[in-house]
């Protein structure tokens, strides 16, 4: 267990703590000196482009991958020293479909219940309860291969919740889903968080992080470059964005802390021949990401 004094918050308040957590593959740092704290009960988003190190972080936090150096504590337990205690406390929904495709939804859930040591009575009760919770009662006896992508994701969430984990890791939970299914998944994630589950969610969808997360950490090339609530992060660059389209069709952005400043700037631009159009809008996390990474586009 880590020291309470070191953190300044009680163990019950910190669900995840990392100290210089790092992972190197070959000569490349997938994650480098990650220092992160996720509070208990929080819905935390880990935002970054593909290949930024989000999944590697999740794999280290969930005892699958050994860190090259650094430490991680989940539910107060050192991931490397007490992996079995960490495994009892966490549920994980991986980015890819990780259910046994040859088994039915019910059988997959029962397998998870068995390997998490639920008694026969508990297993039966919990499976039915969760099938109802995620809306899969009618599909319980279909094999995973027979389900649509959205239902497969719901089944994965149900499996990850079977042992009532305190902390749920969701790795890109809505990737590849259509807009309606994504919204339904968001509702489910919000409901889980409202029911007291701490959620660590990775995503490369800006709007997902903004819509769901109380705090967001932005990771780029294996390093945490910013952390805070969406409004705090926007505040780092300015809450208002002036978007300009030049004669050549190129986009340019300028950020302001209040709308009056932004309007003044736009008025000045009205005499400029090189600007074709200009608009003021609220800044968003994509603006933050682009500004902090020097112009790289998320999702690349």
């Amino acid at each position, binding site marked *: 267990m880590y020291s309470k004094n070191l953190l300044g918050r009680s163990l019950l308040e910190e669900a995840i703590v990392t100290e210089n957590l790092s992972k190197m593959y070959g000569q490349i740092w997938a994650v480098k000196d990650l220092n992160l704290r996720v509070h208990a009960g929080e819905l935390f988003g880990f935002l970054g482009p593909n290949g930024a190190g989000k999944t590697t972080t999740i794999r280290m936090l969930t*005892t699958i991958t*050994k860190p090259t150096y650094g430490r991680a504590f989940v539910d107060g337990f050192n*991931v490397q020293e007490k992996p079995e*205690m960490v495994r009892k406390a966490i549920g994980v929904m991986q980015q890819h479909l*990780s259910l046994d495709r040859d088994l039915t939804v019910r059988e997959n859930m029962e397998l998870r219940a068995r*390997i998490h*040591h639920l008694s026969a009575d508990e297993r039966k009760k919990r499976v039915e309860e969760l099938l109802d919770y995620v809306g899969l009662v009618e599909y319980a006896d279909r094999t995973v291969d027979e389900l649509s992508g959205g239902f497969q994701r719901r089944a994965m969430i149900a499996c990850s919740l079977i042992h009532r984990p305190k902390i749920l890791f969701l790795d890109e939970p809505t990737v590849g889903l259509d807009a309606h299914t994504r919204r339904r998944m968001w509702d489910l994630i919000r409901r889980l968080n409202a029911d007291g589950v701490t959620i660590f969610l990775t995503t490369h969808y800006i709007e997902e992080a903004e819509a769901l997360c109380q705090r967001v950490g932005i990771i780029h090339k294996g390093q945490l470059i910013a952390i805070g609530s969406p409004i705090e992060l926007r505040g780092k660059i300015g809450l208002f964005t002036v978007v300009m389209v030049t004669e050549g069709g190129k986009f340019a952005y300028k950020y302001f802390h209040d709308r009056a400043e932004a309007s003044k700037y736009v008025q000045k631009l009205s005499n400029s021949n090189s600007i074709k159009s200009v608009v003021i809008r609220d800044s968003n996390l994509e603006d933050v990401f682009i500004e902090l990474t020097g112009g790289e586009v998320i999702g690349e």
Partner: protein
Amino acid sequence: MSLFSDIYAVFWADLRVLRRRALRTLATSLVNPVLYLLAFGYGLGRGISFEGYSYLDFVVPGIIALTAMTSSFSGAGSKLHVDRLFYKCFDELLMAPIGTLSIVFGKSLIGVVHGLISSFALVAVGLSVSPSFRASPLLPLFMAVLIISCFVFSFLGVLAALLVRSHQDMGSFSAFVIVPMSFLSGTFFSLESTPEALKMALYLLPLTHSSQCLRAAALNQPFPLASLIALICFGIIFLTASIIVLRKTSV
């Protein structure tokens, strides 16, 4: 929670899958051995006698050993390497609060079941076509060696599935280890007639010991206890190696 319930939990899922595919699995695993039996036992070996027995009597225990090996190996290894490398559902076991011994042993048991289903079908064929096999008083010992063999090759299947990095690697392992072992381990010929140096090399293969023990039990010959001990040692080595590999790859 006990080790046994964890092992059973891992085994349970594979057993559910097998239940859906039992007939297909049995049919697939019997194609090669039945072809060997027809080609070598009735075709090539017709009229040949070996160590005082008809070639058919001689070859049946070897083919049963071969079937136990291939079915157990692929029964344990095929799904495991796909689940580990492609579907990633093996990760779910690694993230559960169960030990590596439970995972390795649980995953091996399905190979044992595959091996026993196919071998028992071949035993039934062997008993009907081989009078010496039918008359052997050592049949209980034969069954015990068969079960041990299935465990040994299941552990090998799990080890291979944990070591490979691609589907091709698994194919290569089969091509360079399993197929040569099928033909070289005294399954189709007697080791007595091989040069001493080659014989020594062949004793390094677990299937050699499995065939020797099964043949001795099937034909009521003096039982090679040293081979049984060697076979058990191979099983312990494969099991231990699998546990070490799994522990090295995860926290």
